């Protein structure tokens, strides 16, 4: 028997740092990935997909957003989709799950597990599902504790599914909310505990696994990165499950920290590094560059050209923190001529930059623009 384990779809998520076009693409891809999961299940021969919480980003999504994933799952009538609430979409009064039921929006092949009690998953394999249900965003108790004593038929394949933070995993700060015992699978006799909350794949032990989000939604995902689903194969109620991860995400999120630029070579290298993430599909890359350094006038123009303009247009999103500073000196002023008002203005600005203080950064920007405009003027007159 096989299942597909996924979590943290977070349909309806918005991204403040991307432009509107990229936002639309990212949001659309979070729905499209459901189809890829369904296809994966079919391809792997898995009749069940376990979604370990946070299907939705918001407690009160719009009706359209609410029904969109249901309709995507409806397209896979041969697959049973098992959903539990997460901290983003806890089973609260008037929450998303109540709305879905009230509006009769849940397809037959989608099972909402809204009570913490064993449910038969597959009669053929005597497989039982033990869901842990969050009824509010945060709890301080371990909702999987009931699994220890939850009755299932003799010889049943017990599969737990929960949303929270495993305790004793070096994440005590996060684990204060919605804690899950790290040895829950062993104590409750679970063949597998499918977890959600971490957005990157994370294998806690042989039977306890975070699948991560199927479509990455942040630069720091935790774990081994997101954009994957886990296919779990069971050979028996006690045999260790066999895991395999499968890429489902379309976009690649990558953060480059402490990028120091001092020369044109650095600029070219940076562009190459970013493009290398997805050389054939740079439009699926979301890159966050933390840039610093000092560049000469020419190199700064190159930076603007390669990074600010060219790479920015190539990627789905280029997020820049910081910028290289202009390293203009007396030699650089010579390119403005040996005399004249422009050179005099540049010298005055450079003096302000070197003087430091609150005005220095503005003077730096002004000087940078002077050199850029100088180039424009020279090109226009030549």
């Amino acid at each position, binding site marked *: 028997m096989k299942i597909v384990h996924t979590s943290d779809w977070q349909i309806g998520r*918005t991204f403040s740092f991307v432009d509107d076009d990229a*936002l639309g693409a990212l949001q659309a891809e979070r729905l499209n990935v459901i189809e890829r999961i369904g296809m994966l299940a079919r391809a792997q021969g898995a009749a069940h997909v376990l979604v370990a919480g946070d299907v939705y980003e*918001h*407690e009160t999504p*719009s009706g359209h*957003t609410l029904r969109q994933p249901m309709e995507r799952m409806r397209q896979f009538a041969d697959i049973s989709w098992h959903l539990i609430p997460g901290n983003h979409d806890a089973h609260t009064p008037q929450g998303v799950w109540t709305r879905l039921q009230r509006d009769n929006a849940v397809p037959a092949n989608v099972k909402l597990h809204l009570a913490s009690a064993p449910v038969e998953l597959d009669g053929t394999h005597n497989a039982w599902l033990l869901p842990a249900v969050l009824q509010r965003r945060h709890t301080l108790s371990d909702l999987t504790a009931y699994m220890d004593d939850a009755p299932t038929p003799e010889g049943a394949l017990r599969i737990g599914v929960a949303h929270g933070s495993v305790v004793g995993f070096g994440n005590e700060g996060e684990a204060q909310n919605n804690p899950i015992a790290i040895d829950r699978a062993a104590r409750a006799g679970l063949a597998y505990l499918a977890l959600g909350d971490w957005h990157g794949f994370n294998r806690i032990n042989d039977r306890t696994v975070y699948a991560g989000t199927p479509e990455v939604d942040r630069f720091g995902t935790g774990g081994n990165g997101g954009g994957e689903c886990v296919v779990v194969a069971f050979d028996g109620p006690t045999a260790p499950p066999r895991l395999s991860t499968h890429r489902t995400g379309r976009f690649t999120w990558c953060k480059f920290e402490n990028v120091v630029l001092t020369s044109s070579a650095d600029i070219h290298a940076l562009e190459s590094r970013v493009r290398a993430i997805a050389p054939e599909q740079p439009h699926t890359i979301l890159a966050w560059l933390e840039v610093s350094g000092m560049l000469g006038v020419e190199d700064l123009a190159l930076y603007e050209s390669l990074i600010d303009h060219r790479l920015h247009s190539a990627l789905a999103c280029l997020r820049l923190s910081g910028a290289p500073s202009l390293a203009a000196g007396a030699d650089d002023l010579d390119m403005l001529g040996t*005399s004249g008002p*422009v050179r005099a203005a540049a010298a005055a600005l450079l003096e302000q930059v070197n003087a430091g203080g609150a*005005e220095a950064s503005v003077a730096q*920007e002004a000087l940078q623009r002077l050199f850029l405009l100088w180039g424009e003027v020279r090109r226009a007159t030549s």
Partner: protein
Amino acid sequence: MILTDIQIEAVRRFASPVRVEGLGAGLNILAAPNEAGKSTVLKALRTALTLRHTSKAQPFKDLLPYGGGSPHIGVAFTWKSQSCWLEKKFGSSSLARLDLGAERFDGEEAEERLQALFELEKVSKSEAAGLWNALLVEQGESFAQPALQGAGRASLQACLQQNIQGVTGTAEASAMLALVSKRLAQYQTATGKTSQRMRQIQEEGEQARALVATLLARKEALQEDISGLEQIRRTLAQYNNPERRRQDEAKLVALRQTRDQLRGLVAQEQAAQAQLSAAEQNVQYIQAEQDRRQTRRADIARLEQVLADAQSGHTQLSLAAGEADQKLAHAQASHKAALSRHQQARTMVSRVMHKAALAHNQQAIAQERAAFERANAACARLEKAQAALRIMPVDAAFMRRLAKAVQAVHQAQASMQAQATRFEATLLPDAAGTVWLNGNPCPVGPQSLTDVSELVVDGVGRFTITPSTQQSDALHAALATAQSALDSLLQEVGCHSVEQAESQHEARRQAEREVEQASAECMALLCVPKPSDITAALDALRQKLNEREALFAKEQAAQADWPEDEGTPLDVEQARAQEQDALMAVEAARAQEQDELTLHRMAHTRLEQALAQFAQQQQALQRDRRELDVWVEREPDPALQTRATSSEQDRQRAQAELARIAHIRQQEEPLSVVEQGILRREQAMEHVHEQITRLSVDQTERETRIRQAEGDGLDEQLASAERHAAQVQGELEAWERERAALALLEATLLQAETTQTERYLAPLVQAMQPAFSALFRGATLEVDTQFALTGLTRQRAEEVKDLSDGTREQIAVLVRLGFAELLHKRGAPAILVLDDALSFSDSQRLETLFDVLSDAATRLQVILLTCHAEQFTPLQGRMLSLRPMERFVVPN
């Protein structure tokens, strides 16, 4: 550059083609009357250079002819020995063509080449501008110096830069400034205010933040609705619990049964209480009746006893009253006798006192008689003294008159002495008796001689001395008159000398003192204030004395009729002592009578009171007897006793019933508690009903709101709004950074450019100086960095703005001429066209200006448009004319 031909068609007043004929190098003058079209020619020339042929903007509309048509302008000029042709047609069939020698450019290319040739810069969608705007001076523009910006400024800088070593980059700086200003205009206005786009972003940011706040509020409201809805549902479930409702109703039924039982007991209790009250009322009434009868009978017995006692008391009181009557009569008689004795004593006192008064009167009359006699004698002495005084005539008045007469004589003598001749003889001892004056021995010492005197010296001779005074006669007459008056005055009183008169006057004053003394004595004796009252007072005293003596005689006669006193005659004191004794006896008798009278009244009062009380008691006794008889007749005593026994039995039965009911009620809850319990439960059930209704409505409302919020996707909206707000804020911050950098860059560039400009202002001044020196001898110029002439120093520094209109116009024209010269010197096309300028200049200045313009015209073309042909005749330039054409002629 030389303009050689200008053709205009369908431009404002020129509907048909017209040509400016006669154009050539040097000075050109188009003199024509007003409204001949001079200004239109200049406008057409300027438009051909600066307005794009495709323009539909206002400058194009300003060109349109009055009758309609497409403005068509052609300008022929030579440039670098080439014949050039510029042709533009505006409107529907627009056209632009520029022939530069053999090269031809059409349309946009022609426009671009034109702008490059004339160094123009695009300032709007359809217009370009440059230094040429300062050289084609339209009517009215000549009064102000040109304001140079953009390309115009750059052109001039290029002119100056060319000639000054080491000054470079001004063109690039201008270009950069233009770029910076253009970019900065996105963020702020020329005055530094926030641009409209920036404001839009700021407003967008505020709106975004407001939307976030609104959505957050809505989310809070939604959370409240959700929690409230759950609470309502729990409450409704509790209210609608059937088991609880059944229990409430069963409890209510039981309470109502208890209440009904208690109400029955209350009714029974009330009935028993009523019976008890009635029985007690009867018992009390009967008891009261019995008590009343008993009391009444006791009263009757007491009254009968009192009346019997009163009978004996009446007799004793009557006897006491009779005894008091007798004592009163005896006391009254004693009082009357004492009064009689007292009257006699008073009569005796009266007589004794009368006699004493008569004796006193007799003594007083005798004294008055003696006083009268003294007064009378004094009056006689007074009359005698007065008689003696009356015969003495020398009184004080006479003496004053006499003194005046004596004084007049002395004055006359003194006057004479003053006029007299002084004579002083000093005789030797042997000469005595030998010298004689007026027959007398000559006195020794000074002498005054008033008359003719004769001095005889024995043995010597006779000397006659005649005083020299001229008034001698008058003085002698005055002395004689005075002496005569004195003598006659003395004769009036019979005196022969003044001393005698004075002696008589002294005798009179003695007589006056005697009269005064006698008069004072009389006034003192008669007690009068003035001497004139003396006689009257003496007569009145005499009459009064006579009257008193007559009255006394009458009283003496009356006393003689009184009876003779028995025994020893009494004096006044004795008589008064007897009268006092009699008075005291009267007082004692009156007190005795009063005491008896009081006792008499008391005895009779007691008797009357006893009689009155007796009568009242008799009446009360009769009334009590009548009432008792009525009571007994109405209900005899036995019947009353029977009724009393029956009522007591009723009362005891009612009390027993009440005790029984009270015992039962003690076993149950109080009715009020039961009723309150029922009421509370009924209200609670009613409240539940109302609550269910209200909560149902509230539930529906909350569900509606929740559904609406769900449908809106509040969280998604909020996330979207927060994203939008963050983006706008980021954009705003980026804009602000950009604005600050550009503003700093602009300011720095401007400063650098100004500094640079200052370096070549001197050459600019130098270029303009010759023309200015011709007009303003010895003047030095001050030019600012905007290339405007700001000051002129002749004997003293003067600001241009303070000069006269005519001078300022002359300066403005010379500045424009200077610009044209600079352009020309740099090898750029340049001419100067002035329309109706210099009309305010005086003839001397105008002559000088003509010289300056003529000199300039040797280097560049100058065209003057004027309506004052006679003024500009001395210039000797080419006279132009406007000649109509059949059609627009394009040169081959």
